[in-house]
């Protein structure tokens, strides 16, 4: 039913549950799994400002490796994508899903958001609203 499944990962505590659930869905519905890490850079206000994405890229690579291993232990061989760009993480996820023809995005309601009473984080909210494909929202 969902041939290509995209799973945004962010290294938060909730990532493990999301990756495992995505694997289960992929196995049940016969889909392939792709893990994506987004480095969303702030748009510089002034041309002279620059932002070195290297530490975030490294964090991202490590996160993708961890997530890939989680998926493998759960019986899924997952591809990985790292997307580094200026903009909003939610929009970037939606755009990658559109450009690469994903049919489902599996995303956690809240990843790094520390605000406890936030029911749904901003990235998840943006993805749910902007994605042109189906979205499975996973809860803690």
């Amino acid at each position: 039913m969902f041939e290509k499944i995209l799973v945004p990962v962010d290294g938060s505590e909730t990532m493990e549950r999301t990756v495992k659930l995505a694997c289960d869905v992929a196995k049940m519905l016969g889909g392939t799994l792709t893990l994506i890490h987004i480095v969303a850079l702030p748009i510089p206000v002034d041309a002279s400002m620059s932002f070195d994405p290297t530490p975030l890229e490294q964090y991202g690579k490590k996160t993708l490796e961890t997530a890939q291993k989680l998926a493998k232990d759960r019986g899924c061989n997952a591809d990985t994508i790292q997307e580094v760009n200026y903009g909003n993480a939610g929009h970037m996820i939606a755009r990658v899903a559109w450009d690469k023809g994903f049919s489902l995005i599996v995303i956690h309601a809240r990843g790094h958001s520390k605000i406890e009473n936030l029911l749904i984080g901003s990235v998840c909210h943006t993805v749910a609203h902007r994605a042109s494909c189906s979205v499975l929202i996973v809860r803690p």
Partner: protein
Amino acid sequence: MTFQRVLVPVDDSPHVLELAQQATEFARETGATLTFLHVVNTPKITSAKDIEQQKREYRWISDECREKAAAQGVSASSRVEVGSPVETIVSIAEREKFDLIIMGSKGQSHLRTLLVGSVADQVMEHASCPVLLLK
């Protein structure tokens, strides 16, 4: 983690049978059972007699979804409630321990530029179980 009991809110919008078909396909592939739930939105000042009448009037929608699912070998039930759609969907899912809510992205909303309707948006926000938003 499996999805055994799936709640599928439906309404009288034009795409409801398409949504029901997708939910049926999901159930066929996962072995889940479906509950098609129609929440009839009514203002608070309604007599008990009117409520029963509205339930009977709107029953055909969830019944039709159930029949089509059953014809494809999927175990499904049909249910009508009266009240606020979001609150009813969320509380039923929680109280009756559904594993998943499958929602269409747009039901009552008619704006072409609106990608996700207000009921789906709020259910997604408040549900305590996973929500599959189908587009």
